């Protein structure tokens, strides 16, 4: 394919998808190891009421209030889950189920009650985003990548998700040692003075920020898939955290790129006329990678001894 076609139509969605995938997979590694994988699921459900409330308050579809609303909803959800768990002495999973389904239901109800016919805000969009529409119309070819005039016309999602990815990476890099220690041995982390409660909360909030930024660009289904599938697949490949994170990034990139390409061009190769949902395809590809590693990954079994099944 020529650059004239690729750069405006596919480069930006591809980059946004990849950045979103990595930004979610990075904190996902720790969440999976801490058995908090479903936090991502909960967050991506409560984003909906968050953006609806933000829309009701501001009356416009603008990005920053909505992202703030979504982040606020995520924090409210985390606090509520903790409150329900402690006050009701309920197991964490059930507490999570109570909170996120209720908030999601409230979001759907609010959405139905408001007149959103004039604006583009609906549940389907929230679920599977619209990666394909994030095209870069100002580009004419590879030369545009260095052209400041054309760069000004980049879809705003791209710098935002790039910034989020940078923020998440910096967080993981700065808190690498305490994160690693507290993930594997919380008691030991406390004895050497790590404030594990604060750190755990910071991790969840980082995950929430990544989820909200990614959600804005690609919809919530990729968010859940990328929080869990690449880290889980990476977990089957190695016993070392550093290697696991490297693998998870590779898997995230692989699913984003292959998913996007298959969604965009796969149906054409098969003779169909139209593309399918890129978000869904990326999630499917990440599942395929997970399935392959679960079947043949060197460290797939619980004992962790390579080669034994």
């Amino acid at each position, binding site marked *: 394919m020529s650059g004239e076609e690729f750069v405006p139509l596919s480069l930006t969605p591809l980059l946004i998808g990849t950045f979103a995938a990595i930004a979610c997979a990075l904190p996902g590694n720790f969440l999976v190891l801490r058995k908090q994988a479903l936090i991502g699921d909960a967050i991506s459900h409560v984003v909906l009421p968050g953006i609806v409330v933000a829309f009701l308050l501001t009356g416009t579809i603008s990005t920053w209030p909505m992202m703030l609303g979504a982040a606020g909803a995520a924090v409210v959800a985390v606090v509520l889950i903790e409150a329900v768990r402690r006050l009701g002495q309920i197991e964490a999973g059930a507490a999570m*189920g109570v909170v996120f389904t209720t908030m999601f239901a409230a979001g*759907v109800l609010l959405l139905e009650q408001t007149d959103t016919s004039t604006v583009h805000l609906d549940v389907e969009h929230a679920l599977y985003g619209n990666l394909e529409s994030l095209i870069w119309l100002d580009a004419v070819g590879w030369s545009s990548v260095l052209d400041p005039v054309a760069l000004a016309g980049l879809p705003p999602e791209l710098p935002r998700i790039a910034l989020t990815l940078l923020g998440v990476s910096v967080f993981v890099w700065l808190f690498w040692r305490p994160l690693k220690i507290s993930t594997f041995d919380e008691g030991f982390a406390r004895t050497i003075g790590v404030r594990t409660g604060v750190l755990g909360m910071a991790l969840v909030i980082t995950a929430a920020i990544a989820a909200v930024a990614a959600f804005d660009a690609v919809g919530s289904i990729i968010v859940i898939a990328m929080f869990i599938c690449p*880290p889980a697949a990476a977990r089957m490949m190695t016993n070392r955290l550093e290697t696991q994170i490297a693998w998870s990034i590779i898997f995230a990139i692989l699913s984003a790129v292959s998913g996007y390409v298959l969604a965009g061009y796969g149906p054409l190769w098969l003779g169909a006329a139209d593309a399918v949902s890129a978000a869904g395809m990326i999630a499917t590809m990440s599942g395929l990678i997970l399935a392959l590693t679960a079947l043949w990954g060197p*460290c797939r079994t619980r004992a962790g001894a390579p080669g034994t099944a």
Partner: protein
Amino acid sequence: MLWDALTLQLGYNATLVAIGATLLGISAGVTGTFLFLRKRALVSDAISHATLPGVCLGFMVLVALGGDGRNLIGLLAGSAVSAWIGLLCMNWLTRHTRLAEDAAIGAILSVFFGLGIVLLTVIQTMGVGRQAGLEGFLLGSTAGMLWADALVIAIGGAATLLLVMIIRRPMTMVAFDPEYAAARGLPVHRIDLAMMGLVMAVTVVGLKIVGLILIVALLIIPPVTARFWTDRSDRVVLLAGLAGGLAGYLGAAMSASAPNLPTGPIIVLVSFGFFALSLLLAPVRGVLAAVLRHLRFQRRVHIRQGLLALAQGQKIYEPLTLRLLRRAGLARADGVATETGKARAAKALRDERRWEIVRADQMHEATAALYDGLRDIETVLTQDQIAEIDRQIGGPQEVPA
């Protein structure tokens, strides 16, 4: 308007939906209880999301066979198949790989849902033009419910309920103590699968009314609500069924009473209302009960400490203690004991001394373990024992001035 809806006066469709939602609520509450007691509540999330590819494939097959793609039985059969595959994958992941259950749930949920969305877009481009109903399975759509649909839901719900009743004893045992169940010779793994199968059945039946995202709420919230009110598993099952059925009925009625009130979310919110009330008001496990318990305990501690202080002639500085003593008629506003106060204080001091003897005596070891500074000694020792202790203490001694 709401009253009309509650008494099923709002027409044919509203009545169908209300009956269907009630039955669904009962069977979801009852089935969900076992899931909740087994501490696997969120498995239902994976199962429900895994129905989507099946719905789409079912639609495609039906259309390919030249039929109407919206045949509910066909779609539900498809969703059951894909949910079952998702369930088996999830079980395999947790049993044969190192992944914990939550990661397996999340992986199955997102991948199956993603695949479902891919299939949904494929259907949209098939140009059949009849796919509009499929999005309804995400959030439920009761507007166009037919008599046949209601019948499917009613029969499915009733069958699930019957199956739950048949295998409830082994399921309860597995939920509480899987090792013991295995030792008794029960096939724990198969019972777990049966439990999941029932959850899957409820999910599939509920797709039409509340949709696959919110059916999870009907499986989780009523059991959690019921758990507040009782510690007996059979009653939790009963109450969960009741809470679920009531939420279904009220929710369906409310959604029929005004425009723009989608059935599924309303049912979930009503259900959550029950949960919130239970969380606050339940007799033993509720927040209010806990607060009252704490306050009562605090009061006892303060009065006890105040009485001991009075008996030893110490001044009371703590305002709460003073207030409590005054309200009980044991002390005056200036902190001087009344006649009853003096008597009670002397008794408190004597009891404390009795406890000291008890705790020093090896013979009373078991009793001494009950000492917490508040317990009345009469409740743990007989009159004879107390008299014996009093003999050791001796007669009244000089009270400090």
